[in-house]
Each structure stands twice: as structure tokens, then as C-alpha cells.
């Protein structure tokens, strides 16, 4: 991943604050993840983020 993308991630995480930071720190502090913890990292479909949101 290029450096500019990493900088963009830092900016976004700082903007969106506590929720993102908490899950990030919790994940980075886990040393022996169980299969359940691993599967909990699955992401939702991109369309779900735009549901109910209108442009204009």
C-alpha cells in the first residue's frame, strides 16, 4: 500500500475518532485470536453505507 494511502487512513481514523480507534487498538492488542474473533472482522457490503442516504 502506498504512503499516501496510509496518510489518508490516519486522517480518516483521526476524524472519525473513538469508535474506530477503539476497535483498532483492541484488534492490535489481541495476540491469540480465536476463529470467532477472526470471523468478526468481516466487513459489510459497500451499499449498506449508502442506504437511506440521498444526494441533495
Amino acid at each position, binding site marked *: *500500500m*502506498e504512503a499516501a494511502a496510509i496518510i*489518508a487512513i490516519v486522517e*480518516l481514523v483521526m476524524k472519525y475518532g473513538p469508535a474506530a480507534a477503539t476497535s483498532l487498538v483492541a484488534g492490535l492488542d489481541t495476540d491469540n485470536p480465536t476463529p470467532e474473533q477472526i470471523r468478526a472482522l*468481516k466487513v459489510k457490503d*459497500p451499499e449498506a453505507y449508502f442506504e437511506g442516504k*440521498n444526494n441533495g
Partner: protein
Amino acid sequence: MKNLKVSRFVIYFVVLLFTFLSLATLMSIQSCAYNVGLVKTTYKLLTVSNVSYDTAMKTAADLYVQERITDEQKAEIIKIGKIFAAAHNAAIESLARYEETKAVSEQEKMSKQITMASGALAEILNLIKPYLMEEK
């Protein structure tokens, strides 16, 4: 206090870079045995990947509501987001199965899916980055 938090993020993202490089190295070794270090490293990498995608998509949705991105740009972000989500979730499933079964055949699948997900995530971030610069 705020500076401390910022420093912590910087440290974590240096760790991310290190983790990414370590993972690439570990994957290239083509180990023939179950590797607990690989599980730990890949889990951390996928955690960062999960948070990055979630934050990027929330940002894209906000930009859409603010009419700063068009329907076409939204469609492009969704298209790449689907590629990321499929690859990321497949890598997650491979890692979980690797942890459960210790089958080394999952390693190669994981490597391919992570590479694909990483490329898609960088594309999403590149699409929304110009709008973040506007806010400064």
C-alpha cells in the same frame, strides 16, 4: 493529551507498515508447517484493513450526502468496495479455517486475497483523498 493520542496513531501506523512487510515476507517463505506467528500478524493486518475500509466508506457516504461526490463516483466507490469486501472476507475465512484446521493450503489463498483487498482499499482511499484535502 491530544498529542499523545496522535503519537499513538503514528506508532500504530508504523506498526502497520512493519506488519505489512512482515506478512509479505512470511508469505514468501511458503512455510510447510502451521505458523502461529502468521495468524497473529495476519489478524492484526486484517484488523487495520477492516477499520480503514469502514472509516473510508463512512466518509464516502458523508461526502455523498453533502453532494460533494456524484452518483457516478458513488457507483465507482461501491464497485471497488465490493471487490475489497469479497477479497477481505475471503481472507478472513481462510485465516479462520487455517486457525481451525492448521491446513497450510489456506496460506496461499490468504496471500492472494490480501493482495487483492489491499489494492482495492488503496483505490478507495485515492478516490476520496482529494475531498479530504479540500477541508484543510
